């Protein structure tokens, strides 16, 4: 035979493996493990230059980044709380600190958004103390008909000066 048998066998084997991989890529739907990502950026929507000292009663300019990889469009909200390091949420339970502000939006699957926020920082008390600015991502569940904590959060530790 002009075409060597062994060479022909190797070509067929490579073709079988390649076509099986290609077919799997075509048939497997879904984008893998679903998740939502939340990012906290500075006032210019860049990483870095986060404030470390904030006068009490002032406002801080930050930027929030949200990315949807849930495999479906989502209705989300980001809740802002002020607390202490002991008030940090976990990946299953939200923080117990009171909610100060929230921002809502809708994102398609694979979609991302960045938006600037101006958050008040106020601690009841006289002299400076440490505070934790907490941002939690919540998703509206259409099956359960309510908001569900996604387990994703960001926080920023700041020292709150006395105002003035």
């Amino acid at each position: 035979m002009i075409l060597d048998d062994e060479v022909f066998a190797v070509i067929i084997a490579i073709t079988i493996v390649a076509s099986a991989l290609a077919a799997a890529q075509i048939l497997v739907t879904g984008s893998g493990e679903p998740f939502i990502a939340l990012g906290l950026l500075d006032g210019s929507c860049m990483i870095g230059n986060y404030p470390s000292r904030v006068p009490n009663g002032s406002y801080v300019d930050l930027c929030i980044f949200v990315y949807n990889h849930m495999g479906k469009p989502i209705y989300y909200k980001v809740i802002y709380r002020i607390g202490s390091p002991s008030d940090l949420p976990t990946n299953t339970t939200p923080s117990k600190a009171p909610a100060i502000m929230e921002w809502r939006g809708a994102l398609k699957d694979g979609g991302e958004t960045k938006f600037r926020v101006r958050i008040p920082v106020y601690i009841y008390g006289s002299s400076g103390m440490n505070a934790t600015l907490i941002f939690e991502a919540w998703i509206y569940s259409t099956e359960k008909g309510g908001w569900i904590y996604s387990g994703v959060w960001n926080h920023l530790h700041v020292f709150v000066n006395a105002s003035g």
Partner: protein
Amino acid sequence: MDDKRVYVFLALALLLIPQIPLIYSQPSIDDEVSAVMRDLEYLSSRGVNVSDLVDRLNHALELYQRGDVDGALNIIRDLRARISDLMGTADSVYLMLNIYRYGSAAAVLSTPLLVYLLLPRIYLILWYRSRRRWLVRRVKK
């Protein structure tokens, strides 16, 4: 005295009862948005492109957060109309998507068989074509 209290209570109840439908008839934005989201999730699962609709919903939420409730509700009402139009086409889109997906997979999986049948033939054709102008000469001994 007790009769007087009963009359006051009844009067208050009569005043409040008609207000209850008013209090509960205004839907919250969550109710409106959740209904739209349910449909968008369904359409997305059927392969319908809902990117524009989600962007419009996001815009409605931005308006709502700025205080423009009427503007937000108008957009949501418009979205519901567009979604109801798309609902009719969702099943056919899903069918076409599956035909394309399984057809592509079948075409790709048939490649090894085609290679097995056609590669020797093609190789032979090319082999002969490359030697077409060769001169074959019988050497007399």
